[in-house]
């Protein structure tokens, strides 16, 4: 899910950037340092939408660098346990399938796929019902529920299930939405 949040960060700036463009340099450095990063608490920082305040700079002893406390508004994306979301399947194998929802990867184990769906290997590996009416393959859209999350240094990885009511395939890659 997306959130709009105020975060704070201490930005260090080299004296060569001081001048009338100080604030612009500070903002572009903030964007380079923060956008695209991921933390366990806030999730992926998708985009910075604005600067709320820039505090007074503090000169660091010995180096000449100046540290500015910056409060900024940003859009973050963070998955939660119990969240239902729609994802696009990226890979299918006999252990289950991988899907992506925005910047987040989700794995659905074959134990959390309905029992009436069996894995079919071949050129296009997929999970199919016995009557062939429902198929999960690459680029299928599925609605799933997140049951667990794991945070690495740079990404969040989730475990999902489609074994509950109103979960499963939304659309096939061949169909036009």
């Amino acid at each position, binding site marked *: 899910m997306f959130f709009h949040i105020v975060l704070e960060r201490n930005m260090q700036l080299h004296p060569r950037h001081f001048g009338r463009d100080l604030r612009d340099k500070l903002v572009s450095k903030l964007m380079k340092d923060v956008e695209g990063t991921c933390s366990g608490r806030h999730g992926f920082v998708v*985009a910075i939408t604005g600067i709320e305040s820039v505090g007074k700079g503090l000169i660091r002893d010995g180096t000449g660098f100046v540290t500015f406390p910056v409060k900024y508004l940003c859009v973050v*994306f963070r998955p939660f346990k119990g969240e239902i979301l729609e994802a696009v399947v990226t890979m299918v194998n006999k252990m289950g399938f991988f899907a992506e929802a*925005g910047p987040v990867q989700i794995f659905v184990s074959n134990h959390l796929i309905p*029992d009436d769906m069996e894995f079919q290997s071949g050129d296009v590996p997929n999970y199919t019902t016995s009557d062939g009416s429902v198929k999960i393959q690459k680029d299928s859209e599925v609605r799933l529920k997140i049951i667990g999350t794991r945070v690495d240094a740079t990404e969040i990885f989730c475990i999902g*299930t489609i074994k509950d009511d109103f979960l499963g395939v939304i659309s096939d890659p061949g169909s036009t939405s």
Partner: protein
Amino acid sequence: MQFSNARPHFRLEFRLIRCSQKEMAEKGGKGFSLPKGSLKGKDDNSAKSKQGRKVQIDFEDVSDPLEPNSPKTNGKVNTPISKGDSGKGGKASKAASGGKNSVTKAPSPEFKIEEELPKNVKCLMDCEAAEILQGIQDRMVVISADPSIKIPISFDSGLTYAKRGGTFSNPQSVRKILEPLIKYGVSEGEMCMVANLKVESDDEVFALVPSLKSEEGKLRDPLKTALNELAKIQSSV
């Protein structure tokens, strides 16, 4: 008949193994992971093995931890020694018996985000996020002339995700429609999730968000009204 003849033989062999395990535990051997002092799990077995001089008790006690597996192995009880590898054999037999249903269903986690996020956070619906990110992308076309500024991958994937499947053209009206549900106990996160999923019926909402079931009585009618209005907006896009 063969089975009943085999059982005493099995018991004797098993007892020998248990004795050797106990000896090794006493000698401080780590191979069988029987730590002293605690009375959980495997240590129960070691404690029980002290009682295990009586063959019958030993077998039954040992069978207890394996019992959850034995119904699933159905017909394979006559190979209990192979159950010693039950970590693998059990799973294989589950697969052989087509037993995906043998996995115990863990309780489904509830969607509670208020506890984990600071209070100054605003939940965004996907349509709201798409509007914000699209505006940033339009500005980036100008800013991207600067080669030092690179658009992160998470921005592109986030924008694509937010815009998927068509969005509500007016996010403010969507929020106006759903906000009255808050006074019936719907949290902001749950409200945004309902908007994102484009649910079609109130039954679907209660199935997907079990935490709302406690308020089902007073929530059902306002929820139906809100979903009808959302459907009108969606169809007019």
